[in-house]
């Protein structure tokens, strides 16, 4: 167990190093290339163009990448723990469907023209309406049923995407463009209050989730066993569901839909560091941050001076990585069975 703690410390240090590397890369790369060594000097010189680029574009973007990547990945790790299903992510539960529906509604009805904050607000409200719906519908006779919650989430996703298509079919082409652009996701957020809020929220939720690492560990053996080990499984699941919903709702409303981070990153991290939530949560958070910052660098540079939607990059990179991984684990399982 002593060696265990040493191993965990090494994981965290490695991930922090990777995160720092990714952040420096993100600050340095772009239309104007800024050498790492010059960054402190440039930040002191408020007159230069580079200062403007750093302070108003790249630093906010990097911070947002950190917060959103970390949050989505953390939410995914927790949800996979609650549902004991490695294929669950924030978006499978209908949360993104609800947020998209909210945003679509705001754009179609013209609400977003009144105030820039209405768009994220609509996303947030949409996400929470769906969460509430999924949650109450899953409350069967015998209390909260996790499988029911999953199925209802998937169904509600379908319903919201149909409603969204309906709204899109009756609105103008210009609005459709806005909706599609939002759905594809971007870390391009100019409102610095939102960025600060997002960073604070993500770190806060990470800290709060650490209060539940031992129940999450026990839940690896199922809800009943967790109860027999002394945890109020339903209560824990309820609180964690709310935390993850809050995180995902906030992410979607700020950055649109960025898929696969919450699915693939916790999955890969679990294979690497093991299933103990004491290390898994922080490792997922840091890996998600690093991954999203790197994806954003790609999105900005691949077809510069134009920019790709970040959702495209995370979807392709994450999806391919996941398929490769599935093949690998299948082979491993076969080997284990034959052995």
């Amino acid at each position: 167990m002593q060696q265990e703690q040493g191993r965990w410390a090494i994981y965290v240090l490695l991930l922090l190093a990777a995160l720092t590397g990714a952040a420096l890369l993100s600050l340095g790369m772009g239309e104007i290339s800024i050498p790492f060594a010059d960054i402190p000097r440039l930040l002191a010189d408020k007159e230069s163009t580079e200062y403007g680029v750093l302070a108003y574009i790249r630093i906010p973007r990097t911070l947002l990448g950190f917060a959103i990547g970390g949050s989505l990945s953390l939410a995914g790790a927790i949800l996979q723990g609650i549902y004991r299903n490695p294929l669950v992510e924030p978006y499978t539960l209908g949360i993104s469907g609800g947020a998209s529906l909210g945003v679509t509604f705001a754009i179609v009805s013209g609400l977003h023209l009144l105030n820039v904050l209405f768009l994220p607000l609509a996303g947030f409200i949409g996400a929470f309406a769906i969460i509430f719906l999924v949650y109450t519908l899953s409350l069967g006779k015998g209390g909260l049923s996790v499988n029911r919650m999953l199925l209802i989430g998937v169904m509600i996703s379908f319903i919201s995407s149909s409603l969204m298509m309906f709204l899109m079919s009756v609105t103008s082409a210009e609005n459709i463009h806005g909706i599609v652009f939002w759905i594809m996701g971007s870390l391009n957020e100019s409102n610095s209050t939102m960025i600060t809020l997002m960073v604070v929220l993500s770190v806060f939720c990470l800290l709060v989730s650490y209060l539940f690492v031992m129940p999450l560990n026990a839940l690896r053996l199922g809800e009943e066993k967790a109860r027999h080990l002394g945890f109020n499984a339903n209560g824990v699941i309820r609180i964690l569901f709310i935390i993850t919903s809050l995180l995902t709702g906030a992410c979607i409303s700020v950055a649109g839909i960025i898929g696969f981070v919450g699915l693939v990153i916790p999955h890969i991290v679990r294979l690497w560091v093991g299933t103990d939530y004491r290390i898994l949560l922080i490792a997922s958070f840091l890996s998600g941050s690093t991954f999203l910052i790197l994806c954003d660098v790609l999105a900005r540079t691949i077809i510069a001076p134009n920019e790709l939607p970040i959702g495209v990059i995370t979807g392709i990179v994450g999806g391919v990585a996941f398929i490769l991984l599935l093949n690998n684990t299948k082979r491993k399982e076969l080997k284990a069975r034959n052995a």
Partner: protein
Amino acid sequence: MSSFLDIQNLSCGYGNGFRTHDIRLTLAEGSFAGIIGPNGSGKTTLFKGISGSLPLKTGRILLEGEDLSTLSWREKAQKLAIVSQFSQIADLTVEEYVLMGRLPFRRQFQFFDRKEDIEIAHHYMQLTNTYRLRHKSMEELSGGEQQMANIASALSQHPRLLLLDEPTSHLDITHQMQFLNLIQRMNEEMKLTVMMIVHDLSLAAEYCDFLLMMKDGTTYCQGLPEEVLTYEHIEHVYNTVVIVKTNPVSGKPVVFPVSERRLRDGNQEIR
């Protein structure tokens, strides 16, 4: 002086469907009680009522004078451990798995495992012969080894009452005896009170000092093995013809099934 475990007039069940009703049972500390009865007679439901997985419709369960329904999950987990026939196995090492048994005793905000907890887990891993497997994944273990790790975890919980739900029914005879002998030892040495659901009537007679026989959701009879395991009781409860003899070594009843053909051939004089 009240008894160690006192189940009073217990009824519990699922929704409108099946339920277990009017169960009365008192056990002294250090008893080794067997729960027997056909499939669907309510044995597991009774356990679910005791463990709190199912709410009680009526009745009370007093453990050392305390009403179990007034305790929190954590307090309950400090008194009561359960091993079922099949356990949920995750991709944990055996050591991690056994250490889970110490979860009810963690302090709030305790992040790392205490040395004391690790020592307790190691102690029971050695007793169950799973210490050598401690770095292996639970998934790689055989059914018998998994069950031994399972009991190591339950014993690490330092329970006052241990509930075993058909713990040995899919084990070979080596693991079966190893498992039951260990439970017997814990029962004697630590005065651990054990309740065990078991299908093998001869095993029940051999190991348990008290039997509760169930039929259609309620108690059919209870008492010493030789009082409960008579061929009349068994034929009535199980609808099966058996012969009951006495084990020449232990003096406990042994139950032999009789095949239909044998009955047809009129081999009556055995009885």
